[in-house]
């Protein structure tokens, strides 16, 4: 199937399906209906789309970027109709059936909301693609886990664009919390209400440093040198 975009009616219909899935009034999303002529129209460039079998968010995002390589994705960062159609196309991946039920969560996870970054980053496809394109290998933490959820690292660091796209803040977070050998977060780093966690780093420590430093002018290592002792355990 060729890449399409949802029309305004298509977006309304998609929203209707998401709501129906949440309330239990609808058993499943009717993809074929959303692909009909008045709800979807072909994208300006001909791009062939393929079904994907993926095991992780990283695999999904990288394969999708490859599939969309002939599009200037930067120019389409805010293309609501495009990203929402892609969500419909890969709905089995971003909203899989669990115990025969789909739990789509908030609309923003599937229908791109460009109102502001705090809504934008919730999109399960557009946001990780954008962060990967801007940070490349540094985005490793954002791509951890399964494609149908944003993990703790994503939730804590991606909610403000200033932090989300700061190479040095993300580099420092990777050095601290990411285990390069095991390719996973270090055990305990995603804890809540504890010192030295990702949450504490993103919510308390970095905003405090921003009062005194321009973190984008620094390297990840330089940020780490400023951190209090509670984080030193991760460097051992």
């Amino acid at each position, binding site marked *: 199937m060729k890449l399409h975009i949802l029309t305004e009616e298509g977006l309304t219909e998609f929203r209707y399906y998401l709501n129906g899935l949440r309330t239990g009034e609808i058993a499943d999303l009717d993809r074929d209906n959303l692909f009909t002529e008045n709800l979807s129209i072909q994208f300006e460039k001909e791009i062939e789309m393929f079904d994907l079998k993926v095991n992780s968010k990283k695999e999904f995002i990288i394969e999708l970027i490859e599939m969309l390589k002939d599009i200037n994705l930067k120019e389409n*960062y*805010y293309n609501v109709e495009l990203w929402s159609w892609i969500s419909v196309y890969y709905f089995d991946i971003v909203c899989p059936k669990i115990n025969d039920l789909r739990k789509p969560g908030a609309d923003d996870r599937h229908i791109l909301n*460009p*109102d*502001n*970054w*705090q809504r*934008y*980053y919730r999109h399960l496809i557009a946001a990780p693609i954008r962060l990967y394109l801007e940070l490349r290998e540094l985005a490793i933490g954002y791509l951890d886990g399964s494609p149908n959820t944003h993990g703790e690292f994503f939730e804590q660091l991606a*909610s*403000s*664009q*200033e932090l989300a*796209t700061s190479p040095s803040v993300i580099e420092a977070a990777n050095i601290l919390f990411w285990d390069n050998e095991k390719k996973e977060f270090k055990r305990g780093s995603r804890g809540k209400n504890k010192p030295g966690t990702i949450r504490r780093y993103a919510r308390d420590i970095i905003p405090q440093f921003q*009062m*005194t*430093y*321009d*973190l*984008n*002018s*620094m390297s990840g290592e*330089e940020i780490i040198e400023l951190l209090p002792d509670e984080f030193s355990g991760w460097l051992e």
Partner: protein
Amino acid sequence: MIRKFNYTGRKRIPLKRISINVGTVERRKAFNAEIDFNGLEFPPEAKVYIEPYYRASYMRFDFGSIGTWDPPLICYLQDIPDTSLILFRVKIVDESENIGKLLGIADRIEPNSDEKKTPGKRTILPVDYDKDLKDQICRVNFDEVGNQVVLEINKRIENCTELVRTNEFKILVLPGIIRIIAERLKDYDYDENGSRWQDMWIKYFIRNLKVIKKPKSDDYNEDMIDDWINDVVLAFCRNYGIYRQFLNLNIFQR
């Protein structure tokens, strides 16, 4: 007045030395900036960055250094959503000795506009004329990130900036907006010294509209809180002569 201390050692750049214009280049939003650094005693090699932002959306532009002003050819604002409430931050950064140290900063800079504003004074109900609200005329947005209540006007309306100045809007719409805001404050416990948008609005109701303090919310005084909301709207209408102005509209004789 609450005194604020600056322990960071960085200098504040006076807002009057900064001039930022937002306009359209090739149908895309862009800005340019001029800053007068004379006499501020920053080292010439210190870097200058300008960061436009709106709520959690953010961009960053390298403008060279104090000694060598070197702005980008065009500063497109492609990552900032449509809004007329964009703000800017100017940072002066040491990148030679104490790497990354902020030497100076100016924040919450509003771009130049035709409207007369008192420098440093923030309006309690900023209006955003750049939102596509589809079939709605206006919307109240409780912007927790920006710590403000914003009145959004649909940009599809021709002359939408004039709309809020019309008597019809002031008389028929504004009291409803005040009610929406007061309703939102139902469960909020007022802090006289607080700086959250909730505190600023309740302060406005008490000081400007002479409304009594809102009763503390608990399960037993819902009626009292409803009365307080009605008092707020009534006081607003009385203060601005809404009923008298409504009669002057002669709405039924058109």
